[in-house]
């Protein structure tokens, strides 16, 4: 657990969108999927997931419907809307630009300045 990274503010939404983009998921499933695709490198408080999910639904990026899970339990499933897909693309681009910029800034050597 100790080697898990803290989430940067605002990145949880991006992770949720990405997780759901791979196929409809219920809340717990989103958590597992994020763990899976991030190779368990990120620390996510389980409860914090839900305000994020609701926020995305309210913004019209996700849509939710009740269904039955693989454990045969009632659960709310989330999937991307068209707007959500668009937002995921934009946010991914933004993120990549940001990462590239930060990385290049951090990797700069004194003689390069």
């Amino acid at each position, binding site marked *: 657990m100790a080697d898990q990274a803290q989430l940067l503010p605002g990145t949880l939404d991006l992770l949720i969108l990405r997780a759901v983009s791979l196929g409809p998921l219920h809340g717990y499933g989103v958590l597992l999927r994020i763990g899976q695709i991030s190779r368990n490198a990120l620390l996510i408080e389980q409860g914090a997931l839900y305000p994020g999910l609701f926020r995305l639904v*309210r913004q019209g990026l996700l849509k939710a419907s009740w269904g039955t899970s693989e454990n045969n339990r009632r659960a709310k499933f989330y999937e991307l809307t068209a707007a959500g897909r668009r937002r995921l693309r934009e946010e991914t681009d933004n993120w990549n630009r940001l990462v590239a910029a930060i990385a290049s800034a951090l990797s700069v050597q004194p003689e390069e300045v």
Partner: protein
Amino acid sequence: MKLLDSLRFHIATLFQGSRRNAEIEEELRSHIQHRADDLERSGLDRAEAERRAHIEFGGQERFREECHEALGSNFIDSLLQDVRFALRVLRKSSGFTVAAVLTLALAIGANALVFGVMDGLILRPLNVAQAESLYGTEYGDYSGFQSYPNYLDLRDRNRSFDDLAAFNFVFVGLDTGNNPSQATGYATSGNYFDVLKIQPLFGRVFHSSDEHGRNSAPYIVLSYGYWHSRFQDDRGVVGRVIQLDKHPFTVIGVAPPEFRGTLLFVSPDFFMPIVNQEQVGGENILDARGNIHGVFEAFGHLKPGVTLAQAVADVNAVGANLEKTYPKEVSHKSSSLSRQGLTSFGGPVRAFVAGLMLLAGLILLAACANLGSLFAAHAADRSREVALRLALGSSRNRILRQLLTEAVLISLVGGALGLMGSVALLGRLSMWQPFPGAPVHVPISPDAKLYVVALVLALVSGFLFGIVPVRQVLRANPYEIVKAGSAGRLGRRTTVRDVLLVVQIAICAVLVTSSMVAVRGLVRSLHSNFGFEQRNVMLVSANLAMAGYSADRVSAMQKRMIDAMETISGVERVGLVNNYPPLVYASGSRANVFKDEIRDLRQSNVAAMPFRYDVSPGYFDAASTALLAGKTFSWHDDKDAPPVAVVNRELAVKMFGSVTNAIGMYYRMQDGTRVQVVGVVEDGKYLSVTEDQQPAMFLSSLQSPSSAAYLVVRSRRDPQELAAAMRSKMRELDAGLPVNIDTWSTLLDVVLFPSRVATVSLGVMGMMGAMLSITGIFGMAAYSVSKRLRELGIRIALGAKRTEVLQAALGQAFKLLAFGSSAGLLLGILASRVLSFIVYQATPRDPLVLGGVVLAMLLLGLLSTWIPARRALSIDPLVMLREE
């Protein structure tokens, strides 16, 4: 797209407040269950797995709240929260709430009431198809009267109307076989129903094709109301023959319930063809071009594309042409066209309603001023609370929303109360039959328009004055206010509140002044000299035509009726007057008179148009009309004697220079008859109590008998007691003759009706104004006392006298009251000039009125400062200082 989605989401959440909670719960629970399933699979037992899942999930309460936040605050929830808080605040300051709600209720009630009346009388067109293109003719003297031949010519020669219909009133004895009773109908042109495009409820209506000249169409169509009340909804009535004034008429149909004639005030019992009017009116109007009472109003739909101005020009051209062709019979003043429904009453009714609107507007203005100062005071009282909330991080937005919620709540409650009151009053008004025996009613029914108007007025005034304190709140500096404590900055200088209060008091004083002027005017007009003495007089109306008397038998029968009345013990004098006595049903007829030397009796040579009354010997005694010179009629002034007349002072002076000169002189009537003046009587009122002095002439009824007449019976006893004796005497003479018996005073009510209504409305408005100023001054005084409790307490502790305490506490309120009242009194005196148009002898230059207003305002001041003054005097300095 995104907007739509979020809108849908909002709407969904609006109605899903509690379901949303349940869903969040279920989803969180589902998460924990799934986690517990996984943990169970890794070897834990179920209970331990669930415990671990709960712990891993984290602070459930916190996440639940964050979820709610993430979903957005629920509009309804926060609204309910605002409303709950507002209710708490309002309950806490119940004085403010009651004053504000009452103020609004009064103002909204008054305005809704007046709007309801205006809607019923002016805004709403007649209940017929395409009422907007329906216009009726009005003549130069603002009455629609015209002769039947003129109507026919106008109908055939005009190029503006699709078709022109006409109607007149008929008052008949209607007998279904056993019980003759008086009924009111319209005698209409054959095309009447076709012009209005009215289909009968059942049976048929008559058409132009039914008219084949004089008395050719003995048909009647019943109105729905009369069919319901007199024939008990009997559908078999069609085809039945009933007697109108002893002439057989066949009932051919019943009009639809929504159609109640073409005059808003007078709904007829039945409709009959005007070509048969002779059978019920006793005279043939069909060829009488000079008889301008032949038709009450002609009306029709304007042709498409014809403007009102074109139509008026067209009608005037026809009129001018008729005058040229028939100079003896036709005098054409300029005609105009008006919307159907009010005809000649349109002008006065509109003026009256406009006046009421103005007064109601004043009430609203005063109420708004009142509300403004109430809200300002309320906000000032709460400045500490608001400051605290601001200091604790509440947004100004939120606080403003809170204030507005309070304002809206007050305006809704006040508006609803006012509306309920006005709807109840309007209901009473529409049931009201102001005159006994006349089918007159006020056509009012509250509808959606009224509710909308009341709601909008309430909300607008609530909003406007709810935001008066907004500036105060926005500029509030929490630090300063909290530091200064509740004694705060004390408004010694003139504030917005003071100005509002002065304005309000001034408006109220205007209302009080006007109402007093009106009441005084009415009292005076009731006691002024009408040229007769109505007390102790019964009027017995009997139309011999209704019992089938032919013209030659009328005079003898009327003499027998007079004699019969005189045999009743207690009866002093009995006289008779044809048609209507003066001031009864505002109905009088004028006649043209010419100087004796005039030979060419054209309209332009007319010397005077006196009111004409045909009276029997004994009439002047019975009416107590004083004879100034000469003599009155005797039973010898009959058809075989030369025509004689008694004139009033006005006509004597106008025609002959003086009262004494007139005796023995001659003048000429329209038909050329020379009439000798034998007597002069005092002036009087004839058509309305507010009219300028009019000329009048009295002719001998024996020389021009008419079947429709009133017996004027003066008695020593209360005339009411004699009514039964009179009725039985009349039955002895002819059981088939319908008779109406009323006191002259009762019938005068009709003439006094406008000024009565005006007085009552003004009185009510004045009362409202008074109540508004009470709430206003009370609010102001109570507020200033409560703000200065501490200061007053110190003054008392230091030994101030009671008068000094009062001076300190209420001096300002009284100063404002005095200032506002005097301004209002001045304005009221100016406004009263307007009143003199409706109210007889309305003059504000009347010490009684002036004194009354001053006294009233003083009383109002005392009344409304009584409680605050008591409070100021009962301050216990010890308690006061301990509390601080």
